[in-house]
């Protein structure tokens, strides 16, 4: 199992804590040159509380990603029965009960704003936990490392394999590994295109070579990037390419939780021999288990670092060690700067999740969420937009009446075509004329938009009366009634008259 074992530490209980021969990627010795060769990292498998959470998150997020397009949802005729669908051709976005039209793109904007705020809140509370658990880069890298481990063995074996000269079995392992990586990458790209078309149909089309060229291109590009970023580049993406580690500094404060090594308890560190006293020394036995499990290849005992993604695997590793040597756990733990310095002084400090920063983020999330919820509840299946002509605002007619022009957009988000009857409400002496329609009824096809010009004519008597009363703006409504579904939409607008006289 352990090819790399050098001198281990024998504990009182007789178990062995192995000692690894390893150096952090950003260790002093490698800091002299301007351009450093990449130090290959072989994270070791660790078991424990946080690793279990990480497995669970990985399972759930991957399942959501791969399975979502396959969830069915009744959308009536003419539309794919897909619960989540981005329909570029018809510029629609379907999300379960929601159907978002281009006019309602603010829902998407709202979702993005919410996502950003949640990310801020998360970071203020517990640093880069997003990076450590949920970021696609992390999830797929973790998956790729898992595959690597299945094929080539754990850390020790992989290091040995790297050093061995090329042989049949080494080549076989490498080929299998890369083939599996490519397969995962391919499935990733494949799953993505299913969001843009009817998944079962697209699946068949893809296999039979009938799918649109853009589908194949997308799959190709995503396959390449997943393989490259998740399989090959891994932690380099987080350290060198991703802007978020730089930005997150602004989100953190002294109370934010971060994976921290409790130096006040661990130092001075040194090797420990069975039977030695724990007095006058720290709990850290310098076994470097925290370093070998780190997917970023760093030593958390050097303090908070840009590279750390807060994944807590080093906590699991060290806790394992602490159990073996019979010391209390959590020498490495989620702790804040305040917590660390308080403890160093022997004081008690409790984590304070409620701080102005977090309260503001939470408040903003609530506000945006409420606005979106309100907008959602006020949404109608029969949607009428009334746009008043601005140029000219009004037209005087030869009989002394006045006419205003409007553009009406009737949106039918139902599964049936609509027969919409348009009438005026609250404009005495007013008459509605629809250009190109002899009657006041307009037919709107399923899932479509009907745009038409409408004129409202105010009779000479009504005009005279309103102008005598000094009015130049009259409020009224255009009422749309769908005789099919018995839905009604009342749309307030105004009627303009010449000023004065």
């Amino acid at each position, binding site marked *: 199992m352990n090819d790399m074992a050098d001198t281990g530490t024998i504990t009182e209980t007789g178990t062995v804590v192995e000692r690894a021969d390893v150096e952090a990627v950003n260790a002093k010795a490698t800091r*002299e040159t301007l351009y450093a060769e990449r130090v290959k990292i072989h994270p070791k498998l660790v078991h424990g509380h946080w690793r279990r959470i990480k497995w669970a998150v990985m399972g759930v997020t991957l399942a959501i990603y791969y399975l979502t397009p396959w969830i069915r949802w009744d959308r009536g005729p003419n539309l794919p029965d897909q619960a989540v669908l981005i329909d570029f051709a018809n510029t629609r976005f379907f999300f379960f009960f929601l159907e978002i039209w281009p006019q309602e793109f603010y829902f998407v904007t709202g979702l993005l704003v919410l996502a950003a705020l949640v990310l801020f809140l998360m970071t203020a509370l517990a640093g880069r936990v997003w990076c450590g658990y949920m970021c696609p880069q992390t999830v797929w890298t973790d998956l790729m490392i898992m595959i690597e481990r299945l094929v080539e063995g754990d850390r020790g074996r992989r290091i040995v394999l790297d050093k061995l000269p090329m042989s049949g079995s080494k080549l076989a392992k490498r080929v299998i590994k890369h083939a599996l990586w490519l397969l995962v990458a391919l499935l990733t790209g494949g799953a993505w295109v299913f969001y843009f078309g009817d998944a079962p149909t697209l699946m068949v089309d893809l296999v039979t070579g009938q799918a649109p060229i853009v589908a194949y291109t997308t799959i190709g590009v995503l396959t390449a990037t997943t393989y490259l970023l998740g399989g090959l580049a891994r932690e380099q993406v987080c350290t060198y390419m991703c802007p978020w580690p730089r930005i997150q500094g602004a989100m953190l404060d002294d109370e934010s939780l971060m994976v921290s090594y409790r130096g006040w308890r661990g130092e001075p560190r040194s090797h420990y021999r069975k039977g030695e006293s724990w007095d006058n020394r720290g709990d850290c036995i310098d076994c470097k288990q925290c370093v070998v499990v780190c997917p970023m290849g760093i030593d958390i005992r050097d303090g908070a670092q840009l590279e750390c993604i807060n994944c807590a695997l080093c906590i699991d590793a060290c806790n394992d060690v602490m159990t073996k040597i019979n010391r209390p756990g959590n020498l490495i733990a989620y702790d804040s700067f305040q917590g660390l310095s308080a403890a160093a002084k022997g004081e008690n400090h409790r984590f304070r999740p409620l701080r102005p920063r977090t309260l503001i983020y939470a408040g903003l999330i609530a506000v945006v969420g409420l606005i979106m919820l309100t907008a959602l509840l006020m949404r109608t299946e029969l949607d009428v937009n009334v746009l008043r002509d601005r140029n*000219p605002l009004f037209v005087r007619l030869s009989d002394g009446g006045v006419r205003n022009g409007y553009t009406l957009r009737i949106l039918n988000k139902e599964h049936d075509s609509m027969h919409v009857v348009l009438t005026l409400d609250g404009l005495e002496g007013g008459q509605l004329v629809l250009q190109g329609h002899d009657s006041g009824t307009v037919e709107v096809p399923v899932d479509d938009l009907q745009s038409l*010009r409408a004129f409202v004519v105010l009779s000479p008597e009504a005009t005279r009366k309103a102008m005598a009363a000094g009015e130049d703006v009259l409020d009224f409504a255009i009422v749309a009634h769908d005789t099919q579904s018995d839905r009604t939409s009342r749309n307030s607008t105004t009627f303009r008259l010449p000023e004065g006289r």
Partner: protein
Amino acid sequence: MNRTDDVTGFQTTGHEWDGIEELNRPLPRWWLMVWYACILWALVYFVLYPAWPLVGGYTKGVLGYSQRQTVAADLAKAQEAQSQWRQQIASADLTTIEKTPELFQFAVAGGKAAFGDNCAPCHGTGAQGFTGYPNLNDDDWLWGGSLDAIHTTIRYGIRSTSDNTRLNDMMAFGRDQILNRDQINDVTEYVLDISHQDHDAAAAERGKQIFTDNCVACHGEGGVGNQELGAPNLTDAIWLYGGDRNTIRQTVTNGRKGVMPTWEHRLDPVTIKQLAVYVHSLGGGQ
């Protein structure tokens, strides 16, 4: 002056700002490679494409690529795509265009653009008109508001340089001393009367005879106008130059001679048709 920073153990670059020194941290080698690749790409681009401004032009690049050519090609393609519509409009009569939804949409869209380019300076961007320039949204037309009448007006203009121009003459009754000052006042009161405005009843009564003798020939019995002659209806609420007492008196005294140019030589027949359909669709078309 490189030195090693005590706290971090890194070498510094020797740069210092307000006492803060920059650490010299190694970049990954692949990063350097990507950078070299970018430089190489830039050089290749420099050779292939237009890249460098010169005094009398720019370096052309060996591929001979030009954005102007691309635009020209795109425009040609767009015209090509429109040509089937334009052909249909060229061959169809105006009523048919208005009755065929796709043709109508295409005509209105093209007409609107042409209107903005050619007609808006006088008639306004919304065709709302100005004093002396008719409002094209309303239901009052000097030379008729049917599709054909509008088309003819656009094509040949009014008092224009075209041989087929529409033409009439509102005489300068005062300036040319056909009527004297009192007669002009009386006929003005009469016009106020038939357009349902406040007026001096006695003067209007006298003015009625003057109107019959001088104006009925064009403006018709009772001043209802005549679109054959382009004579305005004087009984309605719409006035090209204004319907108040002073303006009417001025109009009778000096006459009016508005000009609308002929568009026959400046716009192609399809565009003129599109314009006619667009103007007709503004709401006042008859």
